């Protein structure tokens, strides 16, 4: 058989097209695959956030801190170097740098701070084992099982929201809550927005403990939520928003 240039190209072209057949069949048959059904209480359609009304916050009150730390078995190691903290207080001028001025009475006032559950969390980006990850409902969560204690996340977090367990925390927990695991030496920990309570339909322990109702927690994607109303009606500031992390703790100062 004599093949000219034109005939060769035709056959060659058809041959190459044959390679496309398999992917095409795969695409067309995909309809038969069983899609994993989403869990009943799906995380999509949620974006948890918190508003902190600093003016309502009573000075010297530690209710939220005590509640959180007892629920989550956070140890009290008694010295600031080893300190493990999920929710704590910092002075106003320290958490809102460039916003302070000399005559502001709020300058030294302690303000409640916790993990900001950022939209664009730097801790997640740097974690080499994916132990820290962002859930689809916006919660930046730790998988303690995977943490190797490298502390990259601690270096990356601009809010100091993370603590490493330098030593075994168990002996330093006053009363262990059997419902929640403790951590072990060499693991980083932080606020998890009470995922275990949210799963049961409860609000975070700190919000529940606050008698002054200074902490408001809610779903930003729910149009009628209290938090949406608060963010709509008030001027709120966030910690270091210019870093591009998209913090989700809103402060009414």
């Amino acid at each position: 058989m004599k093949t000219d240039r034109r005939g060769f190209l035709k056959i060659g072209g058809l041959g190459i097209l044959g390679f496309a057949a398999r992917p095409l069949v795969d695409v067309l048959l995909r309809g038969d695959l069983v899609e994993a059904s989403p869990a009943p209480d799906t995380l999509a359609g949620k974006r948890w956030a918190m508003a902190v009304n600093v003016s309502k916050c009573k000075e010297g009150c530690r209710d939220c801190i005590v509640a959180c730390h007892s629920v989550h078995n956070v140890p009290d190691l008694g010295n600031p170097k080893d300190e493990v903290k999920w929710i704590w207080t910092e002075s106003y001028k320290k958490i809102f740098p460039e916003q302070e001025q000399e005559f502001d009475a709020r300058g030294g006032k302690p303000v409640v701070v916790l993990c900001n559950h950022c939209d664009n969390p730097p801790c997640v980006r740097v974690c080499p084992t994916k132990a820290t990850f962002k859930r689809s409902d916006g919660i930046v969560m730790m998988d303690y099982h995977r943490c190797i204690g490298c502390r990259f996340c601690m270096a990356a977090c601009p809010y100091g929201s993370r603590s490493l367990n330098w030593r075994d925390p168990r002996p330093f927990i006053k009363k262990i809550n059997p419902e929640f695991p403790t951590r072990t030496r060499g693991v980083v920990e932080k606020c998890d927005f009470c995922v275990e309570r949210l799963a049961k339909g409860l609000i975070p322990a700190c919000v529940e403990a606050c008698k002054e109702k200074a902490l408001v927690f809610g779903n930003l994607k729910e149009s009628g939520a209290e938090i949406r109303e608060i963010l709509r009606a008030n001027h709120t500031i966030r910690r270091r928003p210019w870093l591009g992390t998209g913090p989700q703790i809103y402060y009414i100062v």
Partner: protein
Amino acid sequence: MAGIIIFLCLITFPIWYNVTGGKAEYVPDLKIVTQEKQCVESKGYMRNNHMQLLNEWRNTVVREGNRVYVASDGRKYDMSLSRTCLKCHVNKADFCDKCHNYVEVAPTCFNCHVVPEEKKS
């Protein structure tokens, strides 16, 4: 030739000594003091695969946020070591530890997960 046979006898001594002495058949005597009649899956499956099952539970709960396990017979369970496994197997020392010690494995589960107060049985 005789040397090889003597050598083989000596090197296999621990094996046949334990077999004839009945020690090879030793299985740890686990006490099951559960209220439930059946575990989440069959006994054989749990014996062979509880570690994989627990790993799967861990990943599903922590990473996907799904806490409900649907067993192969359709019953539903809360995927929790402390609240589901240990609620039934209240005797960790006589159940988990006994076998883990025998096969010399040291799972790190309980470095963090809290063992509920054990009742003296």
